């Protein structure tokens, strides 16, 4: 695109205007259409929220706030409590976060500080971007057939029940999946650290590692936290990969190697088999909880990023 192309566009529009004196669409009605599109998005989100609330209402009325803290999930006796899944979700997500930060922070530092340009940086950057593009069902498939046997061997040598699938496997798969999210934001905030700060520290005799630890990380801290929050939002809602490798057990997990279920995976597993309106409403309420929690975490992360002036 250059100036001449822009001129051609303007002139063409002018010619059209000359040919048909009366515009096909008046300005006010065009503005109205645009506003309707905006309002439509707004209504869409309200409709999503209220549809979830209404559809889960039987469960909300029946169990109230106890729903989140009861640990029996027994469709046969129509007793539904979400506690095992809340525990499963929190356990997998936080374990995954801890594992992924070990990798995503070095990537951020490497790409943001050590080598921002060059072949190696471009290669790593595009690899990480591809990692974000791989469909989650493929992560789950690879996790089930490649990672689970390795974890099973590990479990045998540790002397715990060798399921192969469970919280640990799910966290490993999740941690790989969320690396791109925290790494890309981390890279951006680290590259935003003013160079006079770094140079000042270097000129006072600080080593490069000291500059990273004492200058860059404190300066970029809130941005890094925002990146971690956004990847937490991803991890909490991730469905397919987790469903395939978590082992699907509806009891409170006893260790990090035991099979469990997350809010998302229980919905994926039981939704089509749900008989009875209370059962379905219970599953939809799990979805509502998931929706609210991920929304709050995401908006928090985005808010921190916007305050730092980074385009997330």
């Amino acid at each position, binding site marked *: 695109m250059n100036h001449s192309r822009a001129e051609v566009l303007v002139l063409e529009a002018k010619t059209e205007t000359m040919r048909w004196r009366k515009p096909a669409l008046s300005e006010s009605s065009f503005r109205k259409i645009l506003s309707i599109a905006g309002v439509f998005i707004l209504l869409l989100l309200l409709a999503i929220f209220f549809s979830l609330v209404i559809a889960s209402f039987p469960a909300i009325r029946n169990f109230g706030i106890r729903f989140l803290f009861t640990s029996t999930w027994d469709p046969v006796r129509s007793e539904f409590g979400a506690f095992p899944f809340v525990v499963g979700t929190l356990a997998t997500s936080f374990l995954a976060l801890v594992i992924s930060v070990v990798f995503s922070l070095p990537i951020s530092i490497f790409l943001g500080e*050590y080598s921002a340009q060059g072949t190696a940086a471009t290669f790593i950057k595009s690899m990480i971007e591809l990692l974000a593009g791989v469909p989650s069902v493929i992560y789950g498939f690879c996790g089930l057939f490649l990672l689970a046997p390795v974890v099973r061997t590990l479990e045998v040598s540790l002397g715990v029940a060798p399921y192969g699938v469970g919280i640990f496997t799910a966290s490993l798969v999740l941690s790989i999946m969320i690396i791109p999210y925290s790494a890309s934001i981390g890279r951006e905030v680290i590259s935003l650290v003013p160079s006079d700060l770094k140079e000042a520290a270097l000129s006072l005799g600080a080593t490069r590692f000291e500059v990273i630890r004492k200058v860059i990380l404190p300066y970029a801290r809130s941005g890094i936290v925002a990146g971690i929050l956004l990847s937490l939002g991803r991890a909490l809602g991730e469905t397919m990969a987790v469903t395939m490798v978590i082992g699907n057990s509806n009891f409170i997990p006893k260790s990090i190697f035991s099979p469990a279920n997350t809010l998302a995976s229980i919905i994926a597993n039981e939704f089509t088999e749900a008989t009875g309106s209370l059962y379905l409403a219970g599953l939809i309420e799990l979805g509502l909880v998931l929706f609210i929690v991920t929304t709050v975490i995401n908006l928090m992360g985005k808010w921190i990023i916007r305050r730092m002036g980074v385009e997330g």
Partner: protein
Amino acid sequence: MIALLTFCSILPMFFILFFITSKGISVINWRFLTHLPKPVGEIGGGISNAIIGTFMLIGIATAFSVPVGILAGIFLSEHRKGTLAFLVRLCVETLQGTPSIVIGIIAYIWLVVSVGSFSAFSGGLALGLMMLPVIIPATEETLKLIPESLKEASLALGVSYPRTILRVILPAGASGIVAGVLLSIARVAGETAPLLFTAFGSPFMNLNVLKPINSLPLMIFNYAKSPYPDWHTLAWGASFILIVLVLGLNLFTKVVTRRWKVQF
């Protein structure tokens, strides 16, 4: 140390690509691409219905989300400030963070319950909802980059406001918008969770949008869960096709948009 950890974190990508390619590529032949799945016990069979289904679902999703998304994107670029624009941006961000399984529940409540059966249409709507938060920001950001002087020049020549937007501003930003649409397709082409209880999956060839339909990710999920080694083999083949499709679309968009880059 830092370089080592960075290197370690791109290893999974190599493993995934290596295993999918080595296990998947041997499965793929003409029969695999053009035949329907066989029932349990019979060796062989293909994935033609899943390939057609994937494209149908993407078609339905695109038909719904592109017009709405582009109009909403124009709205946001024309209203930089204001309460409604702020709320709409908030909604787009929320929609972007909404877990895909929740989108599936929504499409189920809206279209499966009311129609009374699982359908390709409801699956397409679910995917369309997931494309919106990619298309809208892409359109908005692209149009914001187009200099105000272009719009002023057009208006000064007496071109009406709607025609200025539709015939001057929109074509000027076409590359960015197309890139947004392609990326959103790449995002949803591999989605499974929103299809579990909307498109549902089917072992038959189906072209009716009101009937259940199969798609590649759904097929991989169902075959991977099954206890039959033969189906696992088919799933590796389907995974290879899917990953080529999705990553190919990602790379294509990147390469093409770099060449189209708007420069003023």
